[in-house]
């Protein structure tokens, strides 16, 4: 048993030893960093080796820094090659994703972290509400998904598009708030331009009065500073 425990601790020790260079560079995950710290606190041999690693670390940086930088020729060559490339047409989907990425990238890490937590909380709440509604509205009798003959069959003259709106979010709107709003309205972002987002609601057309109600409801949202119906 003792031998086994020694073997395990030897194995753990060599594993920790292998992590030392990343600990010196500060690129270990918090869990491994803690393991290394604890091992360093109890093993003087490891401390000695860690000191050697720090020396190697410093000299590797020194060596690389002494290598200088490329001449301007490299950049000239690159941009001459780029100029010789065929011109590319920007794709709409990429533009939208670039703008959305840009929007989220402009938020601070702290805001993003808070937003992540809030989004998780909002999802949990939403799941709870949906659960309650489902349980309440559960029909007692068995029901088929077939067409009801009591309802009139209506058909439009042509395919009508689902409603869309141009929306500007408040400057302090957080990602989680926007995500929750999009979810609650079953909306998706189809385009962005100059800080305006074009949203589409659901995938069915809506009567005019419902669209008007939707716009006024949207306009009443705290994080929305502008909402207008758009084609």
């Amino acid at each position, binding site marked *: 048993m003792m031998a086994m425990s020694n073997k395990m601790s030897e194995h753990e020790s060599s594993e920790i030893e*292998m992590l030392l260079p*990343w600990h010196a560079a500060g*690129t270990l995950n918090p869990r491994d960093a803690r393991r290394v710290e604890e091992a360093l606190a109890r093993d003087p041999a490891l401390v*000695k080796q860690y000191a*050697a690693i720090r020396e190697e670390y410093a000299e590797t940086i020194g060596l*690389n820094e002494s290598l200088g930088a490329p001449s301007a020729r490299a950049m000239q060559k*690159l941009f001459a090659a780029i100029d010789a490339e065929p011109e590319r047409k920007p794709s709409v989907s990429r533009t939208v*994703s670039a703008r959305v*990425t840009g929007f989220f990238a402009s938020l601070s890490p702290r805001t993003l972290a808070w937003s992540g937590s809030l989004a998780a909380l909002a999802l949990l709440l939403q799941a709870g509400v949906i659960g309650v509604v489902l349980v309440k509205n559960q029909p007692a009798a068995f029901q088929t998904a077939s067409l009801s003959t009591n309802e009139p069959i209506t058909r439009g003259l042509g395919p009508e598009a689902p409603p869309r709106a141009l929306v500007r979010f408040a400057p302090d709107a957080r990602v989680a708030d926007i995500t929750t709003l999009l979810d609650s309205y079953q909306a998706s972002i189809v385009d962005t331009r100059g800080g305006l987002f074009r949203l589409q609601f659901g995938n069915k057309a809506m009567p005019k009065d419902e669209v008007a109600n939707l716009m006024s409801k949207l306009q009443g949202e705290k994080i929305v500073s502008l909402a207008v119906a758009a084609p």
Partner: protein
Amino acid sequence: MSATQAASDDVLIARIAQGDRLAMQVLYGRHHVRVFRFGVRLVRDEQVAEDLISEVFLDVWRQAGKFEGRSAVSTWLLAITRFKALSALRRRKDVELDDEAANAIEDASDNPEVAVQKKDTSQALRKCLTGLSLEHREIVDLVYYHEKSVEEVAEIVGIPENTVKTRLFYARKKLAELLKAAGVERGWP
């Protein structure tokens, strides 16, 4: 690299995919020195390394639309650099540089022994770092200079994470042997 810079690198790549030349200049300005140094350490030739960085960033210009953001842009750049460097070395047919050949390429000034005589462990360490094999040099640089995590090194070099750890361990062991041969005793291994 900070999370903010990593995120803004992603934005630059998205713009480059749209053909934004300015975004390309910013990305180049931000990363070209590190890419160059990684290239120099691999191919041991500044001219070849300069050609490499033009090729690397031209690939970025062409492939930006395919970048999925699963790894940091800097990790992607180093992976392309490594691929291009190995191709350049294969072209030169000297990819299998042994320690002797590597040392022959170094400058003719102080060798490790002389450096130690001068009680200059630091100089000896640098000499020995230069004398490591290509696969040991790259892993030492990626971890210590480019500050890449185990996962990122695995991605750049294309080997499992456990192999990354053992490879660096053996690189360090080799370094210790070179130092010992040069008269620097550090008590390990």
